[in-house]
């Protein structure tokens, strides 16, 4: 977990460390976000968000501008995390963007029915990947107006 400034900008939930590193590098290098929290699987993400388990009593969760969520993760998968996020009134309004390896993924449909805001297919080429992540981050950070609490 990394925290560089007070305001949490992006919460990245991704089990693949390489993908996570590339994503964070792209976001930072393109100056989209600095304050990124990376959580390594669904279980950790839920504990972090709802202050349970290892994060119990720490009250460390502050509302991010956007959550980037990988679908295929060990223990608790992205679908489950999304379900929990969208069924809790506190987290329901946080924009969630799903990252997937394939647009053919049957989970994409499920995500939409659960209320996901957007999804992107991780391209193989690094350039494309960087581009996609940056466009995404920029969009949700700068253009999308989040409802005020």
């Amino acid at each position, binding site marked *: 977990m990394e925290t560089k400034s007070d305001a949490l900008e992006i919460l990245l939930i991704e089990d693949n460390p*390489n993908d996570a590193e590339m994503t964070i*590098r792209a976001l930072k290098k393109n100056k989209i976000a600095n304050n990124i929290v990376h959580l390594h699987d669904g279980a950790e993400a839920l504990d972090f968000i709802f202050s349970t388990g290892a994060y119990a009593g720490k009250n460390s969760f502050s509302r991010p501008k956007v959550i980037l969520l990988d679908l295929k993760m060990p223990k608790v998968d992205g679908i489950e995390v999304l379900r929990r996020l969208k069924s809790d009134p506190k987290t329901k309004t946080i924009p969630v963007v799903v990252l997937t390896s394939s647009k*053919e993924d049957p989970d994409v449909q499920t995500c939409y029915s659960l209320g996901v805001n957007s999804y992107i297919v991780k391209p*193989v*080429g690094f350039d494309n*990947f960087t581009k996609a992540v940056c466009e995404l981050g920029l969009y949700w950070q700068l253009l999308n107006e989040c409802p005020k609490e």
Partner: protein
Amino acid sequence: MDTKDPRIEQIMEQILRFARSDFRVRIPVSGKGDELDAIIAGMNTLGEQMDEKAGSGPDFRTLFESSPGLYLVLATDLKIVAVSNAYLDATMTKREEITGRHLFDVFPDNPDDPNATGVANLRASLNRVLKNKKPDRMDIQKYDIPRPSGEGFEERYWSPLNVPVLGQRGVVDYIIHQVKDVTDSVRMQEREKEHARLNMELKKSAQALEDYEARINSLLNVLLKYSVLDFSEKMQVSDRGDEIDAVAVGLNTLGEELQMALAKEKEHIRKLEQANTMLSESEERIKTILQAAPSSVIVIDEEGKVISWNPTAEKMFGWKEEEVMGKPLTETIIPERYREAHVHGLKRFLKTGEGPVLGKTIEIRAIDRGMREFDVSLGISQARLKGRYIFIGFVRDITLQKRAEQKIKELNKNLEQNLAQLESANKELESFSYSVSHDLRAPLRAIDGYAKMLEEDYKGILDGEGKRLLAVVQDNAKKMGALIDDLLAFSRLGRKDIQRTEVDMKELAHAALGELSKAVNHHAEVRIGDLHPARVDYSLMNQVFVNLFSNAIKYSSRKAKPRVEVSSEKKGDEIIYSVRDNGEGFDMRYAHKLFGVFQRLHGKEEFEGTGVGLAIVQRIVSKHGGRTWAEGEIGKGATFYFSLPLND
């Protein structure tokens, strides 16, 4: 002298005549030459002389009296004044007896004829003459006259005419009554009438006789026909009601009764004959059926002994008919272990009428003469014949059927296993695809991404060769990514259902070309002809054209003027679409490899590609019920065809 000499009388009369100035009569001279003859001669001469003297003026009375007509002159008081001799002759009267007398005193009605009207009619006519002073003709009258002898009257018919004689002052002085005696002609007429009547009677009688004869003949005719059992003829019954009619009525009734009886008898005979024919026909048929039946037909009696055994049974069991007749089945075709049940079952049926195997088809084992046991299907039914039961068994050898059933069972089992395997393989494939899409791509992203990071972060350290090597790494990672994408797309096709709509194939081809031209730079001239429309899945068919165009453009890209032509034609019950290019072509020997997954006829150094495009084309076309094939020649180009069924 004989006083009775008639000449004296004649002479006396002559004297009287002469006294009345009647000199016409001459007395015949007898020739005796005596004094009487002399007197007569003298008188005749005198008479002649007197006649001659009188001839100087006509004597009208004599003339009247001598008239050949029948005349009577009446005074107005109907007293007779004068009469002609002819009248006197006709009425058998004498002048001196009737002259001066009243007409009806002389001629009264015949008292024997109650219908006599002569007097009345004549009186009426005479009165009319007196009154009218005109002649009056009367119809022919029957007016009988009294016989001179006084014995009754004589029948007479008259045609009278009464004519008035008018005096100087126009008064009627006399009536001349003229008659004609028509008795003879009237009698003739009456005789003729009678004759005619008799003739008529005779004719009638003859006709009646003829009629009678005809009816008798007709009776005989009918009787004759009856004798040969023909009752069609009926007697005409007249309205005479005579004995022939009675006979005719009786005969007719009899005929009808006989006819009905005969019809009944005939029907009876016909039915008997029909039944006979049917019986023999059905016997023949049954025999034929038994002979030709593909099943063994075995009939046994109540003791279980064979009473019928058809040729199929001979073939099936190896026993000849003559060998098994009268033998129980337990000694021939029933395997030992079933024998007791067979005997027991037969007994039970005869005792209780219950037979669980009767009327059903069961599968059981039988043995043939060589003790070979085999599967048969057996249907038994019972029948009554002359008060006793018989049992008919239809036996079919089902060895082959059983074998086939066994085989089918095995095949089915295999099929089920295969299906299960296929299903699990499918599932595996799906999860494999999923893994491929997720897990295989992640390391590729890392390879590409970290190579890029290396390139970015260590730009100053890497020399040209180092950079080239890094580029190869990145390039291959991208190729593998493309491969994975194609492979996924291909496997996806297997699961997707096609959604047909009416598609303008020309428009679709243009759209596909446009899509491709955006992604790939090319300078090929593509001509799209008028393509037949079809009912296809738009997006899948779009993929087909994209892939075929991509192929054609790719393999013609090295030509100076690359050309691609698209056309279609109807042939039989399909539409055939073709995409022709003038590119590298291919060796027809390897044509069969074109549509396989990852099959490539060119090295990657020559042309880019994953080798999945045509496999996708084939899969989509075959999902539409069509076929794909290609023709080509190295260096001269290739044509790719696909067909779509017309009436789909």
